[in-house]
Structure formats: structure tokens, C-alpha cells
């Protein structure tokens, strides 16, 4: 038997958690290998096409669970390639949440003030910027006008998009053809590669075992580049330190499957999953009312008819993100474009008798597709998701050649979660149906359960070993040298889009991970600038470093 490949650091996944870790460790001098289960696509490879097998189905992972389905990235760059690039910071009250555990769920070391310097580091790297009203697409403008009409404020959402090159084509879920979305393919990943990181696409990690020298052996399958149901090879790599950043739908599955080899996992691995409290509503607008009530004149003189135009979310109502409101009653209402297929099937015809999501009334609703508006609610759920036993490989039994699979997550929403959804639905309805502007209904949960594009918390940080899988430095309890830096580390729902927080937590974890790497015999140091060489963010966190390195 030939000797296994060796590396200092093995990173599982190339989304926010993996890319940030790979960059800092490689820039600091470590030998870094990244295994990514999905393909490696870039600008010209991103199709504007719904044909099965185009980039749209290649780069996504849609896993149907029991009570909740997850949509996640499946490509080099992970979620950053498929997301809508909304980069708000989490509101202050989020860090004080108790959830169902009767005490603060975030580590004592982390609150908004403590995380702000790390948010700044990410904003320098991505870069995130606020949109002005000229950047706001018609659907966002319509949502803002409806909010104002109902006495609410509305904010253009900070995004990681170069608005000068953006064409408002709304294909960004399939990857940005015009390189306007500043995904990880433009910052952390190329910088990591420049420092020697090797990224291997279509390498799906199955489990970890131990090596004799205290390190870890990472076992992977190689996946066919067209039919992901097919395994074409496999192998192992030995590493002194492992970063698990496979996403909140896959990280706990890999760790659960490793349990027979590594020994028992912390109780919270595969528990406390949060769908970020997500829920969607689709409204159908009456254009005459848009003109008469809101006074809007849009494309070609029409009041609206522009659902297809834009760039994901552009405007959110944050009036319910009020820390004085009780937990589970705080949520954001964000305008969002979801394309046909994934974005139409679950929509229910407002006011129709059953069936509402198929049949005659639904077809009539589809006829009015151009006057749709989708409102994305991010509420506070109760971390009620639990992963069952792992499937034979990967994080799901793959059904279709790409994208669609059946996974082990069970999610039975608690009364708290259901109440939050009901309150968010009511707030949406109050705004959208005022003076006959629109008719609105939530997406059905009957087909594929609730639906999240922001899976979180399935392997979370915390101070309490009973309810957190990771310590406050992101190390897996009881398994030194394994760190988790993706969305699964976030303790709970954030009430806003989570990418910025996932990235900031990964940045914050890096000084401690570098120190742990040094203790494991890796020659590495912390202190890389932003991927483009900027240094303001690094200066901003300098004084925080001693508290993040284990004494």
C-alpha cells in the first residue's frame, strides 16, 4: 500500500468558512489542501439557462428533508457563487438570544461589538457596499414604496455586487455570468491559491479517521462531473489539522459518519439545526393600484410588470428587528427574486380554494408572473432541526443527476417558530394588501416542508458543552485539531442574511486556529492582510488577538 498523501491543513469545503480558513493558513505559511464536493466553474461557465445540467443545477444542492428542505451551494466558492450577495450584519439583539436553552446561546465572548471588527475585515475583503436608490431594482422599489405607504421604513440592502457591471439579469443563482457578483472566486480563493493552496473540485469527503501521529486521515470520493450520483474514484489525505466547512447541511453528516472512527461526537453535532427562521411569501400586484396608490411609473411606462428584473434582494424592511420585541417576534421582510422552477412551485395562489399550489388557480397566478413580488422572511426559529443517521455517502441520497437529493434532516417547527412565521405573514399581508395593492400568500410547507436557503447551527459554537459542539474558538469538543468554520457554527437564526456573519466568525476564528496549528507542529503565523493587500481590517483586529489565542 502506498503512503497516503500528506498536508498540513485539510479544508473540507470552499465556501465562506473554507475559503477564509484556506487563505489565512496558506498566507501564513501552511500547506493547505481544499476538497470541494462540487465542480469548479467561473464566469463564462455560468449559464443563463434552466436546462437540467446547466450551471444552475450543477452548482446547487437541494436536499429534501422531513419537515424542511435545504438549498445550498455545491461548487468551488460554495454559497458565495449561488447566493444573492446580501451582506447585512446581524442586529445587536441576535447575540443575546436564548432560544430554547434558557440561557444566552452565543459564547460570552461574542456580541455585536466584539464581532464588528471582524465584520469590517470581511467588508474589506469581499467588498460589501450599500446600494443607493438608483441601484435598487423595480421589485425592490415597489417593496420600498409599499412599506412607506404602510408607514414603515425600508432599506437598500448592503451587497457584494459591483453595481457598475451588474446587468440586473437576475440569473445570479446560477452563478454570475458578468463577474459582477464578488463571490469568493474573486478574493479569498485566488489569494489562497496564490499562497499555494490546492483546490480539488468534485472531491466529496465522507469521513475522518485518526492517524498514528495524532493527526487525521480524510477519506473522500471523487464524483462524476455530470452525474453526481456516480462515484468515479476515491482516496485519502493525512493532515495535522482539519477544517470542516462543508455547510450546515453536510458538516454534521461528515462528523456523524466519522464517529465509529474518531469516537463519540459532542451531543450537539447534528442537533440545534436552524433554518434561519426562513419562510417566503409571494404577492401578485394589481398594476392599476400600483399606479394609483403608489404613483409609480416603471418599465416602458408600466407601473410594474418587472418581477424578472434585478439582482436578488435589493430592499428590506427592518422595522421588526427591534430588540425590545419579544424573542420569536423579530424578523426582517426582504424583497427577493426566486427564479421559476424553485421559485414558483411552492407559491400558493392567494385567496384560492384548495388546491392552491397546483391546478387552475395556480395557472392563473402564473399568468401574472411579471407582477409577482416575493418577500423573504427571516425570523427566529427554535433550533429544532435534528439530523438522523447519515446516508451511505455524501449528505443525501441523490435522486436527480444533479441538485436534488433526500437527506436525513428532521424539522418539526415548535409553537415559537410557527408563531414567528404567523406574525411575519401578518406583517407582510398588512403591507402588501393595504388599499388593494396586491394579494399575498405564504409558500406551502406541504410539499417539501419548510424551506431554507440559509442552513445554520447544526454544529454550533457556545460555552455550554451540552448544547454546543464547538468551543468559542470553533474547535470540536473532544477532538483537538478539528475546527468548524461554516454556517453550522452559527448558534442560531440571525433574522437577516447570514453570509456576513458566517464570514466574520470564520475570520474571528483564524487567530486561534493558527495558534492550534502551530502547536500541532505546523509552521504558520497569523497576520495576512485582506486578499487584495489592504490592511485597515487587520489593524482593526490587532488588539483583539490575545483574547482569541488559547493561553
Amino acid at each position: 500500500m502506498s503512503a497516503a498523501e500528506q498536508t498540513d491543513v485539510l479544508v473540507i469545503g470552499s465556501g465562506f468558512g473554507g475559503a477564509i480558513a484556506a487563505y489565512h493558513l496558506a498566507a501564513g505559511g501552511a500547506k493547505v489542501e481544499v476538497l470541494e464536493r462540487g465542480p469548479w466553474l467561473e464566469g463564462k461557465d455560468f449559464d443563463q439557462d434552466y436546462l437540467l445540467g446547466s450551471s444552475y443545477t450543477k452548482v446547487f444542492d437541494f436536499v429534501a428533508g422531513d419537515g424542511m428542505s435545504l438549498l445550498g451551494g455545491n461548487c468551488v466558492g460554495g454559497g458565495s457563487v449561488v447566493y444573492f450577495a446580501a451582506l447585512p450584519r446581524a442586529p445587536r439583539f441576535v447575540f443575546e438570544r436564548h432560544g430554547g436553552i434558557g440561557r444566552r446561546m452565543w459564547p460570552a465572548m461574542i456580541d455585536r461589538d466584539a464581532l464588528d471588527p471582524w465584520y469590517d475585515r470581511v467588508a474589506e475583503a469581499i467588498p460589501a457596499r450599500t446600494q443607493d436608490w438608483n441601484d435598487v431594482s423595480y421589485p425592490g422599489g415597489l417593496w420600498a414604496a409599499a412599506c412607506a405607504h404602510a408607514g414603515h421604513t425600508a432599506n437598500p440592502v448592503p451587497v457584494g455586487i459591483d453595481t457598475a457591471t451588474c446587468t440586473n439579469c437576475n440569473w445570479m443563482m446560477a452563478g454570475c455570468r458578468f463577474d459582477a457578483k464578488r463571490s469568493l472566486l474573486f478574493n479569498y480563493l485566488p489569494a489562497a491559491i496564490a499562497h499555494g493552496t490546492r483546490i480539488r473540485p468534485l472531491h466529496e469527503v465522507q469521513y475522518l479517521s485518526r492517524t498514528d501521529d495524532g493527526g487525521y486521515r480524510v477519506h473522500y470520493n471523487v464524483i462524476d462531473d455530470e452525474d453526481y450520483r456516480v462515484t468515479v474514484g476515491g482516496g485519502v489525505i493525512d493532515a495535522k489539522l482539519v477544517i470542516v466547512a462543508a455547510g450546515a447541511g453536510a458538516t454534521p453528516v461528515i462528523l456523524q459518519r466519522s464517529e465509529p472512527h474518531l469516537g463519540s461526537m459532542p451531543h450537539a453535532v447534528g442537533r440545534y439545526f436552524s433554518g434561519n427562521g426562513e419562510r417566503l411569501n409571494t404577492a401578485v400586484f394589481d398594476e392599476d393600484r400600483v399606479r394609483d396608490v403608489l404613483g409609480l411609473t416603471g418599465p416602458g411606462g408600466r407601473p410594474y410588470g418587472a418581477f424578472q428584473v434585478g439582482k436578488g434582494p435589493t430592499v428590506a424592511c427592518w422595522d421588526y428587528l427591534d430588540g425590545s420585541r419579544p424573542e420569536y417576534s423579530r424578523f426582517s421582510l426582504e424583497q427577493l427574486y426566486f427564479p421559476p422552477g424553485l421559485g414558483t412551485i411552492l407559491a400558493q395562489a392567494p385567496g384560492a380554494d384548495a388546491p392552491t399550489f397546483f391546478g387552475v388557480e395556480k395557472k392563473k397566478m402564473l399568468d401574472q408572473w411579471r407582477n409577482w413580488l416575493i418577500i423573504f422572511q427571516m425570523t427566529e426559529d427554535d433550533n429544532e432541526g435534528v439530523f438522523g443517521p447519515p446516508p451511505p455517502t455524501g449528505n443525501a441520497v441523490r435522486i436527480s443527476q444533479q441538485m436534488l437529493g433526500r437527506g436525513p434532516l428532521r424539522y418539526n417547527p415548535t409553537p415559537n417558530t410557527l408563531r414567528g412565521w404567523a406574525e411575519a405573514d401578518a406583517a407582510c399581508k398588512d403591507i402588501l394588501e393595504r388599499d388593494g395593492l396586491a394579494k399575498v400568500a405564504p409558500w406551502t410547507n406541504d410539499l417539501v416542508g419548510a424551506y431554507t436557503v440559509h442552513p445554520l447551527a447544526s454544529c454550533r459554537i457556545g460555552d455550554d458543552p451540552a448544547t454546543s459542539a464547538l468551543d468559542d474558538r470553533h474547535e470540536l469538543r473532544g477532538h483537538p485539531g478539528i475546527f468548524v468554520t461554516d454556517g453550522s457554527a452559527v448558534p442560531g437564526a440571525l433574522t437577516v442574511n447570514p453570509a456576513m456573519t458566517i464570514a466574520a466568525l470564520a475570520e474571528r476564528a483564524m487567530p486561534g486556529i493558527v495558534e492550534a496549528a502551530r502547536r500541532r507542529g505546523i509552521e504558520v503565523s497569523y497576520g495576512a492582510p485582506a486578499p487584495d493587500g489592504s490592511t485597515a481590517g487587520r489593524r482593526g483586529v490587532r488588539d483583539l488577538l490575545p483574547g482569541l489565542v488559547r493561553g
Partner: protein
Amino acid sequence: MRPDPPGAEQTRVLTLEAFADTIVPGEKRSPDDRAIAGAAPGPGAVEAGALELLAWDATGITDALPELVGLLNEHARAFAAEHGAELDDDVPPFVALDFGQRTALVQRLLDPGHPEKEFWVLLALFSNMAYDSAAHRHTAEALADGHPGLTAMGFAHPDSDGLWRFPEYSYGRALADLHPDTIESGSLG
């Protein structure tokens, strides 16, 4: 003279067409069209290409179709017996149901408590996708050919290079006050 009972292939086609037509209904292709119930004006999922999409093994459902067709017709027979409905033998049992009966049966199969729900969800999902995203075709080509679903929805045509761009995209003015706690980064403070 009555026609012979439908053969296996005809049963497969008629049954799947009738299911897809229940999901996104359309008008009959001819007066003697039995699969399409004619419950809605304009073409529906069948004419949008539902059977073409279902026949593509990339969906992962193709191999299961013969079994699903058999199950659906069994359910239809049971449904008819339960409701005292007469089924004629010229067409498969599900096709012999009227549109309201087909709809009621499909609702039952898609109900969260139904043990086979997962399979019917997939069948419904791909029937829908044939209509609202033409997942069996290149989107630009489907639009150029007047694909019924994308056309009815008003999906915009791409530029001459096959790519979508919307140079006209914004109302271009402030339409609401910002949240009072908004900070420079655009987030709440």
C-alpha cells in the same frame, strides 16, 4: 365499435399526461383528447413538454415511471369505487376520472400524511418545471420557439447574444425612509 383497451405504452402516456394536466391544466388538443381535461384555457404542462422532461433520466424519476403509472391507476380505481364513479375502459382509470376527481385524488397523494407522497411530489415537481422553467430545453431556445409556459408567464427574451440584460431596471428615486438605526455600512447599528 369500441376501441381496444389501451396498451402499456399508451397507458403510460395517457396516465402521465393526465397527471401533468392536473398540475398545470390546459386546453384539449382535439375534441376527442381524453388525457387533457380541458380545465383551463391555453396550453398546460403537457404541451409544455412534461412527458419529455419526465422521460429524461437526469430527473432521477424516469425508471420509476412505469410503477407510478400502475400505482396511480390503482389509486384511481379505488377512488372511483369509493365515490361510486363509473370508469370507462377505453382509457386508463386515472384518465377516466373527470378533472375534479383527478384533482381531489392528486391532493390526497400530495398530502403530508400519504406514504407515497415523496414520489408524487417528484412527479408534480417535474410536471410543473416543464411548464414554468422548461427544464428539458435551453431556455433561450424554448422562448424562441414560443414555449407555452415561459411565454404565458411573460418571461423576457434575451439579447441577440443569448444573454439577458435589463438596462432599464430602477424607479431611480428614494421610495422610503431608512430605518433610523442604519449605519454607514448599510446595516443596522
